[in-house]
């Protein structure tokens, strides 16, 4: 999979548009689609059940999340079916960019639990999973995993460039030190 990219945002009249130039090679759209089949079947109910118990509220929350998944899947399917990333820059309205951003997370979470289930979390987090990618199917899934991470980074940069300031070089051992503030603040 060949990826090259730039991103940014622009103001068209008063609306923010996110421009994503994340080029992939010919045919890569199909590989991406192949690897994300099944992601949109439904939300992870246990998250809502864990937070809200087995209640009517949890049922309503799950139904709401299912609608989100449907719209996220629709957008990703459209972009990949139209081979948008193979053709050139993709211009998204702010709301669409947010939907795509959430879709990328859903895809990556599903890949971690599915095709990349044997890869340790530490390796996934570091993006260094070569030792565990024993089959071509897994290598392709990992390439998709990285593609959607890259796509997220570019959308985030387009939506809010300030987010990336100060994040470079952060890891468990260093980066920002705690500033002595209380751990949580109440509104």
């Amino acid at each position, binding site marked *: 999979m060949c990826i090259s990219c730039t991103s940014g945002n622009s103001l068209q009249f008063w609306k923010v548009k996110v421009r994503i130039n994340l080029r992939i090679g010919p045919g890569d759209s199909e590989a991406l689609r192949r690897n994300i089949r099944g992601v949109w079947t439904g939300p992870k109910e246990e998250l*809502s059940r864990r937070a*809200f118990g087995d209640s009517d509220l949890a049922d309503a929350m799950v139904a709401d999340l299912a609608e989100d998944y449907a719209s996220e899947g629709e957008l990703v399917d459209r972009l990949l079916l139209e081979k948008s990333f193979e053709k050139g820059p993709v211009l998204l309205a702010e709301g669409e960019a947010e939907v795509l951003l959430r879709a990328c*997370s859903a895809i990556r979470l599903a890949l971690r639990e599915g095709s990349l289930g044997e890869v340790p979390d530490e390796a*996934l*987090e570091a993006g260094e999973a070569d030792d565990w990618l024993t089959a071509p199917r897994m290598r392709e899934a990992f390439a998709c995993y990285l593609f959607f991470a890259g796509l997220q980074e570019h959308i985030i940069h387009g*939506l809010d460039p300030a*987010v990336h300031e100060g*994040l470079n070089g952060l890891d468990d051992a260093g980066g920002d030190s705690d500033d002595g*503030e209380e751990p*949580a603040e109440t509104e």
Partner: protein
Amino acid sequence: MKAAASETETLTREATAVETTPPWRVVVLNDPVNLMSYVVLVFKRVFGYPTVKARKHMLEVHRLGRSVVWTGPRERAELYVHQLHQWKLSAILESEGTD
């Protein structure tokens, strides 16, 4: 007059009950998938936090495995947890009274 006094007493008791209801905590749990920048953006969008505060909570999640990102009335806490789920973050509700 007696009825009015009784009513006042009831209202006072109810008000006291509301005030003493323990607040609820919105807790975000670590996951190995979501990017640091993504988590910062989500905290900014959902809670309206400035970048520095959003980053502080993200780092707590990353390093300690969890962060209490908001504390307050239950209904609002439930709404925030649901919004975090919409953004695919692992979030749970905790009552301060359950410690």
